[in-house]
């Protein structure tokens, strides 16, 4: 019996010593590439609202005039970042190009919102700035230290899906949906120096979302052009490290809103000038020659102001150029537009950022 007691104790100790065995090993299944063909088609206006994807943005750019004919360009963009289990992150940029005064001013905001499924309606606030769906269109509110803009945006042409289906395959980096309202009637007020001035003009709204964060190792150039003849044009050029073009596509929209997808071979974009930023030292293209031979369309694109660079390292971590441009052909103004240039100011090569931004609330 004594021996049994001793054995029993030994058994107990053995049980204790062996209490952390790995019952179930870790297993890794091979990753399956995502097939964009499985994505459902875009459905509007439902898809104007936020989605549960890594990246989403609503870009509004446009040209306005006061009642006195004072020309302005504006850019307003809201970014939404959804990361697994984390509160939703928001950032927003707002820039006014006072073409008449030759001034460019911009600001940025950030906010966080609760994690979980996104709201069913487009009603986003980033601090005191907002973009909302309203009957027949959208509204935006944004401000600068000494100015503010409030606009109602009513599309006059239907949305156009880029790349024919509205889906871009960035494989292996991910994918996105992408559509635009290429021609939008913009009306509202511009507050500056204590004065409220009614403004109106034409805007362009881009909405892009999907499971991607960054595409192209070298950045991209984006163009939107609204032509006086009623046509609209947009193009994106994605570059790699060595400045090789890895993706180029465009969309031409006719007077009534019918889109035509343009492949890389159907149009060309050639930089004609360059500009070096006095703020960051980065050098950007600063003028382009765009040709669409199949449409007999030739456009010279020139910035209204050279300096429309945004250092938004405090909110989205990048420095880019986005500005109002004038479109001419044979010295005749045939339209206006906006151009965005990224990847020209590698942050690691820039002096430290001086901008800061305090986080605000979302709605």
């Amino acid at each position, binding site marked *: 019996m*004594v021996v049994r007691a001793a054995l029993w104790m030994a058994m107990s100790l053995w049980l204790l010593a062996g209490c952390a065995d*790995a019952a*179930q090993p*870790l297993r890794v299944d091979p990753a399956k590439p995502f097939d964009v063909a499985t994505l459902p088609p875009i459905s509007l206006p439902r898809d104007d609202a936020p989605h549960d994807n890594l990246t989403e943005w609503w870009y509004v750019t446009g040209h306005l005039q006061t009642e006195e004919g004072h020309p302005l360009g504006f850019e307003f963009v809201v970014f939404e*970042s959804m990361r697994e289990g984390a509160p939703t*992150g928001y950032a927003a940029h707002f820039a006014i190009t006072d073409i008449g005064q030759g001034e460019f001013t911009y600001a940025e905001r950030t906010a966080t919102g609760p994690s979980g499924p996104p709201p069913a309606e487009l009603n986003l606030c980033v601090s005191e700035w907002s973009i909302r769906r309203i009957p027949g269109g959208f509204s935006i509110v944004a401000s600068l230290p000494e100015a503010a803009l409030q606009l109602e945006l009513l599309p006059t042409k239907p949305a156009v899906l880029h790349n024919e289906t509205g889906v871009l395959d960035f494989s292996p980096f991910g994918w996105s949906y992408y559509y635009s309202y290429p021609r939008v009637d913009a009306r509202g007020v511009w507050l500056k120096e204590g004065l409220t001035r009614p403004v109106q003009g034409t805007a362009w709204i881009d909405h892009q979302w999907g499971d991607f964060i960054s595409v192209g190792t070298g950045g991209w150039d984006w163009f939107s052009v609204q032509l006086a003849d009623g046509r609209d044009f947009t193009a994106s050029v994605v570059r790699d490290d060595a400045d090789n073009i890895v993706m180029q596509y465009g969309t031409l929209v006719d007077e009534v809103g019918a889109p035509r997808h343009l492949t890389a071979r159907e149009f060309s974009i050639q930089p004609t000038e360059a500009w070096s930023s006095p703020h960051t030292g980065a050098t950007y293209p600063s003028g382009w020659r765009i040709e669409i031979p199949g449409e007999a369309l030739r456009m010279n694109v020139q910035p209204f102001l050279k300096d429309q660079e945004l250092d938004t390292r405090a909110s*989205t971590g990048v420095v880019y150029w986005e500005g109002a441009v004038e479109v001419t052909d044979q010295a005749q103004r045939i339209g206006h537009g906006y151009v965005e240039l990224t990847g020209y100011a590698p942050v690691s090569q820039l002096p430290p950022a001086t901008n800061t931004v305090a986080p605000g609330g*979302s709605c």
Partner: protein
Amino acid sequence: MFRWRWLVISLWLAAGVVGLFAVPQVGSILRAGGFSADGIEAEQALARYEAAFGDVGAPIQIVFHHDTLRANEPEFVAQAMVALAPLSNLPEVTAVLPFWDQPAQVSPSGSTAYAMVTVDIEPEFAHHIVPALRENLGPTDLDVHVAGAAVFYADIQALSEADLQRSEAIGLPFALITLLLVFGSIPAAGIPVLAGGASVVVGLAAIWGVGQFTSFSIFALNVVTLVGLGLGADYSLFLVSRFREELADGRTTAEAVERTVATAGRAVVFSGLAVLTGLSSLMIFEFMMLRSIGVGGAIVVLIAMAAATTFVPAMLAVLGPRVNAWRIWRPRLGPRNGWGRLAHAVMRRPVPVFLGVTTFLVVLGLPFLHVRISAPDASVLTTDAPSRQAFDLLRTEFGEGHVAPLFLVSVFPEGPLSAEAIAAQHRLGRALKEDPRVARVRGLASVDDRITLPQYQLLYRDAPAIGDPYVRAIAGTLARGNTSVMIVEPSVASISPEVGELVAAIREYRDAEGLDLLVGGGGAGLTDFVDRLYTDFPKAVAIILSVTFVVLAILFRSIVLPLKAVLLNVLSLLASFGALVLVFQDGWLSNVLRFEPLGFIEATLPIILFALLFGLSMDYEVFLLSRVKEAYDEGHSNTDSVAIGLERSGSVITSAALVVIVVCLAFVTADIVLIKAVGLGAAIAVFVDAAIVRSLLVPATMRLLGRWNWWAPRWMSGTHRGLR
């Protein structure tokens, strides 16, 4: 001794007075934690992390909660800012990391968020800053809790000190009452209480002194007090009892003192050596918590032995026959009682008694076979403890694993953001995310399942200029130099066995993939702690058993008696371990004892109890066998010697056991489950040993073994005088 009685008493008085000044300072040297050791992987992971990212220190969380406001709302943020603002003025506070800069510090519901406060205090003493943090929080409408390990230990220390005061307030009067019932006279009862009190006071003062050079755990305080009080009173009782016996036999005070010291005093020394051996075995453990209980226990046992063999004889020498003065009642003590008859009755039927009692003890011990060993977290505290409330809120709002995540600290020679390193981390992250034991993984390549490996590699390609703010924040937090950390939040509590299995699985994966990765953090620390404890425990058991065997062999000049004593002791201990499993793991009597069953036995408990109780319950075996040996040396037969020994020691052992049980049960009133369990375990073990083993099993086995009881190799015989 007789000649120096006043000098001895004066020295003890002086030591007591000095001790009374030192005792209030003991709290200042007590350290939190003590559950880590350099050799365990979790500790190596922490060291690697700190080498790359800087000292972790003792982060404290200020947790904000509101039922309707959300943490991203300006009002919530403003309220939190007001609450946090004064903390920066505290000189010990080095940084306050608010939640609005760290999305991970906001709960998924948004109703709870926490700021991290780092303090410039050694982690083991960080619990001292907690009251100041609580007092300095600014006014706010949000619910505010202070959480973190330091807060846990602050609560533990507060509870521990309250437990101690309560246990002493209950234990001392009850011990005195028990002694009055035993001796019937106030001086006889008072001496053991004085000796017990002196052992505790001088013992704690000695610990304060030793604590200037070595670390003592918060948990050591109660165990040391229990041992000092119990043994101090216990040993004195044996001496007072023997002294009265000698006086009753017509000896003078001087003769009685001399014989008392020579017999009972000698037995106390050997008994004390057994307890000392048990507690000293805790010093082989690498963990400060156990080591300090071992050191503290050894100190207090030595002092209890010294009190019993110097202070008590001196007091007896001064009192002389007046030890029986101020009689309250006249108890029936002395050699003529029923113990001899019981011994003879048992020895007439030794086999059935042996089998019956052994079976009974085995059945009592059977629950120990389903013991679940784990280490404690804040759930060992009562639900109204502030740190427990904060812990529960964090657990509810952020998930079980968030409060004690695993840290996987990897070194990549080419850097953790290199394409190869990102691929390795992505693969591990995916494997972890697919595991049901994992709720959440935060890693450089585990930000979101929808991010592809090439996307991660692209994002991290230009490390100083990561565009995406979230990924940039992740990289800033999780990568430094050539080191990266992956944070794994288990889906179950860190004290559950599944987390131990998960840790083992990660290490197997690491070995299979050839990664330079160390697993640390909550569950890994607990797993490693328990594993290391129970790797070292058999060594401690072997030391205790072998040293006790040698001590008893020298005392009894026998091989069989010590062997029998050791084995019976193991049996009685296992019986008390079984009872502990039923009570503290399965929750029996939890309502009566006022605690919430943990579902496991705290890992150090069986070890502390084994080390403490083996010596403690050996006490009675030593006193009994000493008396048996005396009778055998006087020329009585084996059977008669057993009966005489039991008869002569029966009452005094019963009384001594009663005193120890009373003292131990006073500790059952503790709020800290570990202390409660030590008290109850000790009480059960002493009861089983005194009531069952001593009175039934010892006579039965000694009858069965017959002359073999006294067998010893020739070289051992004659080398020792034996007790007279």
